[in-house]
């Protein structure tokens, strides 16, 4: 039917048809506990994350991301080192940060580490830059939280310059200036993919478009649908700045188990524990079983359940948000390695094929509707 007409189907709105669908996994190096609920060492947790990245490739996951954190719950301050270990043992999967807290890092060093990772992995590295909604790196490296915005703005500006390649001349106020400075290693095939992680600020969306970074929507609470205007804003802002369309992704927490009941049972106590702890620092409300039920339901931001439950929700949200990528942030401090391994296996072998199937069905249906509309 698609070839029986001379009319070219109009391009669908949003970005989902322009870029290949990417389905990934993210971890924050969540501190793992053994089957008896005893905490493993930080070192063992890190070694397990390496195995999880290797497993992700084996079961067909497209991307494996590691988010920088600096606490006992998330002992993962050097994500790029762990990513390099995964890169050395894999061939196909893309690897990257999720996110790199650029505000408290040096853009030159971040560029060097990720272009090195890109070299090790033969072009599979990506970087997702964030201001850092986790703020533990600020006191650690002597940054003032009140400078949070300015630090990010300036460092993103420099990072965009570095990505262009070639000697860099740059001036700012929060980091020493650079004058015709060579920054190595050079990348082989042009710049590696760079994204900006955005929470809920439209100004951050415009900034990503301004510098030509892809947009990663970090949706960790409330209705994902409320982010729909952000992907539209991103496309319009890219157009305004004279740039080509760029991918839009979604990052949300969740947990996949064999059944809905098992997934909820494993995830809820760990979620309650960590959010309760974070509420003291971040001002979050402590979740109740009602608020949790909302978040795991069709309108919430947690992707917890059986493979089919999670796949349906992923497909629905990608369509609503006009996004072409979904990264499930799996794990939670206290979950056991076996439950994480099962999560990864189910995500790769069941959730990913099902999401592709659901989106192909809906694209075919839309295409057929459009053609029908065009012909009548």
């Amino acid at each position, binding site marked *: 039917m698609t070839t029986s007409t001379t009319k070219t189907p109009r391009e669908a709105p949003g970005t989902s048809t322009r870029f290949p669908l990417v389905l990934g996994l993210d971890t924050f190096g969540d501190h793992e506990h053994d089957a008896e609920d005893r905490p493993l060492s930080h070192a063992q947790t890190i070694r397990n994350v390496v195995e999880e990245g290797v497993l992700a490739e084996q079961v067909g996951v497209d991307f494996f991301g590691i988010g920088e954190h600096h606490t006992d719950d998330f002992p993962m301050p050097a994500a790029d080192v762990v990513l390099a270990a995964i890169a050395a043992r894999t061939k196909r999967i893309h690897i990257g940060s999720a996110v790199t807290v650029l505000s408290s890092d040096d853009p030159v060093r971040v560029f060097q580490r990720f272009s090195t990772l890109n070299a090790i992995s033969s072009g599979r590295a990506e970087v997702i830059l964030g201001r850092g909604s986790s703020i533990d790196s600020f006191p650690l490296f002597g940054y003032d*939280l009140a400078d*949070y915005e300015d630090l990010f703005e300036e460092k993103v500006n420099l990072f965009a310059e570095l990505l262009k390649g070639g000697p860099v001349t740059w001036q700012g106020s929060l980091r020493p200036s650079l004058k015709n400075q060579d920054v190595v290693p050079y990348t082989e095939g042009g710049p590696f993919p760079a994204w900006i992680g955005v929470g*809920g*600020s439209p*100004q951050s969306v415009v900034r990503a478009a301004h510098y030509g970074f892809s947009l990663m929507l970090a949706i960790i609470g409330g209705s994902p649908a409320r982010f729909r205007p952000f992907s539209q804003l991103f496309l319009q802002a890219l157009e305004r700045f004279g740039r080509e369309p760029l991918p839009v992704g979604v990052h949300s927490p969740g947990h996949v188990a064999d059944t809905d009941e098992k997934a909820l049972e494993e995830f809820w106590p760990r979620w309650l524990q960590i959010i309760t702890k974070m509420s003291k*620092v*971040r*001002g979050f409300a402590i979740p109740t079983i009602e608020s949790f039920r909302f978040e795991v339901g069709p309108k919430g931001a947690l992707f917890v359940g059986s493979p089919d439950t999670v796949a349906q929700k992923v497909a629905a949200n990608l369509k609503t948000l006009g996004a072409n990528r979904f990264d499930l942030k799996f794990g939670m401090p206290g979950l056991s390695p076996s439950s994480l391994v099962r999560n990864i296996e189910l995500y790769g072998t069941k959730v990913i094929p099902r999401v592709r199937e659901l989106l192909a069905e809906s694209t075919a249906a839309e295409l057929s509707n459009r053609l029908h509309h065009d012909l009548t």
Partner: protein
Amino acid sequence: MSGSVIPPSVRRIAILGAGHVGPVIARMLFDAGFEVMIAASGSPETLELITQVVTPGVQARWAADAVAAADTVVLAIPLHRFPALDPGPLAGKLVVDAMNYWAPADGVVPMFQGQQLSSSEIVQRRLSQSTIIKSLNQIAYQDLEDGRRPAGAPDRHAIGVAGDDPEAASVVGGIVDRVGYDPVLLDSLSAGRVLQPGGPVFGAVLTRSEFERAIHTTAVKT
């Protein structure tokens, strides 16, 4: 005086701040039928790109123009920018303080640090010619829009409204009601401490009775 009566003097509302919270409040006020303007630190041009897509119907303005044209101003800027805000143009205005001071997450702001006063009392001291009401600060921005319910709905949620000026508090209570929440009035900015980060209702989406139970107080009858 009923909480839902808004004097005709409240027609044009200016939102200062276009970060996480400002656009959400702007959208809710526009939906509730107010004329709404929004301003950020820079020119309205980039902001217009945002308003067209994210808050259609809301006008992007220079901050000074928005404040001059408004009878009511909502402060939704990061608190650490507040010390640089010029009090002059806000004189005589009803100002809703939707900001929060939460040093562990946002850094220390000396003007607000180690004070016995609530953050809105400090805002009032600095904006001494304005009438400050603390409100729209305690529900997380990501829950604000989905949390709206029509008047009388059994699961309608509450938003605290604290102020030293009972008439102004009642006006803001009326705005809150029209937006889609039950206003719970607190009779002073000092009492508004319960709405602050770390307080019993901060970050929580509660019905009026749950809210009142949480703060161990009875709302001033409206």
